[in-house]
């Protein structure tokens, strides 16, 4: 498992394509409208999937914990939304904290962890 995170607009997906030779189409892009698929090598916008789960009353940490086997050979890309202003809205605050927790969980279980800054990937683990 490889975790790639970074702020918005940092070129995370381009980094993954270049670094790991992943085809642009071999990437499942999560959104708040669709769930998740494990058919592709990389899963992008995982933070949107966290939001998708929360909107359906599901606990994202539990979900990741019980599906770790599905993520074993995947590259997971998450937008790090945890380092900005604390949101006023309760739901956005929960979203922010769950993304942080999920990032912890992936970090602990990943073989490699990268942070992307201005298109430059730094290996943290």
């Amino acid at each position, binding site marked *: 498992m490889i975790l790639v995170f*970074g*702020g*918005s*607009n*940092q*070129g995370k997906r381009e980094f993954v394509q270049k670094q790991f030779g992943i085809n642009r189409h071999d990437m499942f892009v999560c959104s708040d409208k669709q769930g998740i698929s494990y058919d592709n090598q990389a899963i992008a916008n995982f933070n949107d999937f966290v939001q998708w789960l929360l909107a359906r009353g599901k606990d994202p940490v539990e979900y990741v914990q019980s599906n770790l086997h599905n993520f074993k050979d995947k590259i997971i890309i998450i937008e*790090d*939304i*945890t*380092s*900005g*202003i604390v*949101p006023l809205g309760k739901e*956005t*605050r929960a*979203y*922010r904290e769950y*993304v942080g927790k999920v990032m912890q969980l992936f970090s602990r279980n990943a073989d490699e962890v990268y942070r992307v*800054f*201005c*298109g*430059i990937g*730094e290996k943290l683990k």
Partner: protein
Amino acid sequence: MVFLLIGGSKSGKSLLAQYIARDLAADQNGQLYYFATMTPLDDEDRRRVEEHKKIREGWGFATIEEPFDLLKHSNNFNHSDTILLDSLTAYVQNILFSDNDEVNIIGKEDLPLHVKALAKEAGNLIIVSDYIFSDAESFTYEVNRYKELLGYLNIVIAEFADCVIECVSTNVKIHKNIYSLDLSKTIDDFHAQGFGSEIVEI
């Protein structure tokens, strides 16, 4: 040599950029230019500008105030000069939110070309930019466009820059240094000074 310095508010990025500019210019015996892009809109902005002016007093910077056109003053520069562009963030803001019709015709793809061309005119270009990419809130269309354009420019400039540096509360992280320049003395001087610009009363 092209340097890109990025950091949050009050991270020390502008002051470190000043030290880098000073040391690069001393090596080349060229003129130091401070390329100011911010257009002050109110008293708070004006105080911010004054604060930055105070910080660079006596450093030998010739100041150029130009919000839109990075290449307008190109003829003045030569290859031994060092330009400190502060900041890319204000420049993007001017380009995106200007009422000036001429400004709006500059396309997204043109912006890095302008920065590249400016870098070519002078021996050294040091660019100061902001890190505004960690929020959980979603913003208006305009703000997202602004984040997107600044993020894009940061990435493209980081690609052709010789040195990319992140400042976090005056801590310095060098992300890229293709000539393995020894910046330790410059960074020591910066740390010895302590703090950059003061907080402006809002």
